[in-house]
């Protein structure tokens, strides 16, 4: 079983859901982010947050995947002050929705004053509601941005065990682990991490508080990144225990602190969930049967090319 803790499924097709399910991904987390272009008003945010708490969750359930999300104002759009103020106002409506496992993605993009202001305001909201935080570390000036994100989280007295630092690389991992935060790695071609590098990270740092995700979205990315990386770790001689931590147990422990994601959700779902979230067929049109049940361990041949560089 795999848990992909960073997926933008609103940009993915039903084929992706089918492939993920058959590769053994039992649950995915959809962090709120931008759309690839900036939103122009708060109504657009409201509909997006409703979508990831609503229809996308339902859609995933039709393919046997449990879907969770994070809600928050992302750093790019924090630079539109009028929008940012309005989003901060409506966030409390969403923060306690079912399946919301964190406030996020938060952090910095260009490390502007406005990004800093709204990052801090949302850290306070997460603290008030005892929710974990997902921090997106910047693409540019990454190391400084990562260090600053952690310093600000500590300044606001957040417990590092409630904070996931995502999109790490070789240059950031040591300091993240030293400070007690969770270190997530997005296996995303060209711009973030390749999975052979990921194998070496686990070899060097072990599996404590480390996990990987796909960050699959509208760009060239791979929704099978987590099962592929697991297989690559296996071939690289990483222990089964470590693989399970990095691809399943650690993200479950980190986001499980919200109380909104637990193994029972997919292993032993409540009867009312089975009647509703797993029973509909409006996505599986024309009488197709929903694929329910935990997928078997991935057949590595079916994963195709394992390497993501």
């Amino acid at each position, binding site marked *: 079983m795999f848990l992909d803790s960073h997926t933008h499924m609103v940009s993915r097709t039903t084929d992706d859901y089918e492939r993920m399910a058959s590769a053994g991904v039992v649950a995915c987390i959809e962090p709120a982010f931008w759309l690839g272009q900036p939103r122009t008003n708060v109504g657009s945010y409201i509909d997006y947050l409703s979508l990831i708490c609503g*229809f996308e*969750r339902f859609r995933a359930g039709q393919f046997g995947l449990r879907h969770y999300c994070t809600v928050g104002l992302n750093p790019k759009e924090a630079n539109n002050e009028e929008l940012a103020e309005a989003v901060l106002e409506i966030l409390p409506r969403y923060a306690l929705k079912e399946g919301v496992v964190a406030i996020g993605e938060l952090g910095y993009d260009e490390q502007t004053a406005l990004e800093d202001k709204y990052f801090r305001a949302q850290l306070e909201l997460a603290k008030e509601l005892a929710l974990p935080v997902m921090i997106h570390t910047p693409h540019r000036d990454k190391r400084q941005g990562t260090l600053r994100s952690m310093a600000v989280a500590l300044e606001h007295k957040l417990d590092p065990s409630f904070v996931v630092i995502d999109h790490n690389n070789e240059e950031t991992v040591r300091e993240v682990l030293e400070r007690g935060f969770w270190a997530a790695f997005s296996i995303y071609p060209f711009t973030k991490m390749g999975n052979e590098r990921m194998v070496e990270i686990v070899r060097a740092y072990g599996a404590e508080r480390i996990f990987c995700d796909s960050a699959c979205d509208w760009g060239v990315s791979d929704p099978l990144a987590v099962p592929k990386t697991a297989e690559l770790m296996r071939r690289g001689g990483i222990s089964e225990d470590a693989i399970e931590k990095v691809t399943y147990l650690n993200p479950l422990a980190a986001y499980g602190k919200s109380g909104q994601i637990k193994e029972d959700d997919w292993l032993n779902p409540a009867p*009312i969930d089975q009647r509703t979230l797993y029973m509909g067929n409006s996505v599986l049109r*024309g009488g197709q049967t929903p694929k329910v049940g935990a997928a078997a361990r991935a057949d590595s041949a079916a994963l195709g090319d394992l390497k993501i560089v």
Partner: protein
Amino acid sequence: MTSPKRTPQELLSSWVVARSSAAAADWFLGQIERLKSSPTEKDIYLALGYTTRKLGKSDLELKAEERAAAAAARPYWDPSDWSVDQAARIVFVLAGQTRDSKAFKTRLETLFNTADVWELIAFYRGLPLYPNAVEHVARAREGTRSAMQPIFEAVAHRNPFPMEQFDENAWNHMVLKALFIGSKLAPILGLDERANPHLMRMLCDYAHERWAAQRPVSPELWRCVGPHADAAALEDLGRVLATGAKLERQAAALALASARNPEAERRLRGVPDLDEAVRAGTIRWIDIARG
């Protein structure tokens, strides 16, 4: 103890309390008091947000006398498949009722617009309990347009709101959509009372569409065809009698029996085994719906 004189809110509250720990019940009752005074927007969202965390989401599993009390408190109200969190959320929504029905409606719309799947199911199930029913018709129709089957069913199934408030076009499209998405007709309240010639025609056209594509036709479809069957519909029923599978033939026989015209009777008499079973009451729509 429940008594027929209690309001739906009182019943829902008592069911939630009876199924919760002392601490959870205290939290629940405290929230009701808070929402009855002048709550902030955040109070409302946090109460609704904490509902499943504090109270869980197990089924209410109402006892027979509790179901009877529900129907006595509000005619045709059937909360038999509600869960604890749904009951609590509707109590919270109703706790904010004031004499200003416009304010209630505005707040309810905001709640709908920012709801997650669970809340949507609860809020739509609550439709028959909201004041000024006619103000909520557009919202109910929005629910029947949902691409999420459990949302559609929260409006369509075991809910007296559509039967009481939908105009003919809305009603007909709800019934047709139920078939289209593979949902059952039997749990729709008022199915026989609201049958009409236009729906009969829509359903027969749909059956022809399915036949042309060599796709199966739900036997439940014929339930809404029988009472207003015209000559063409009787031909269709004859075709089902002649070529259908067992449940389809049973459905066609029941439909013919509900048509109450000489041609329908003649066709039914042509299949003595089914004719006899219909008269004996051994064929029932509820069994056909179960498949």
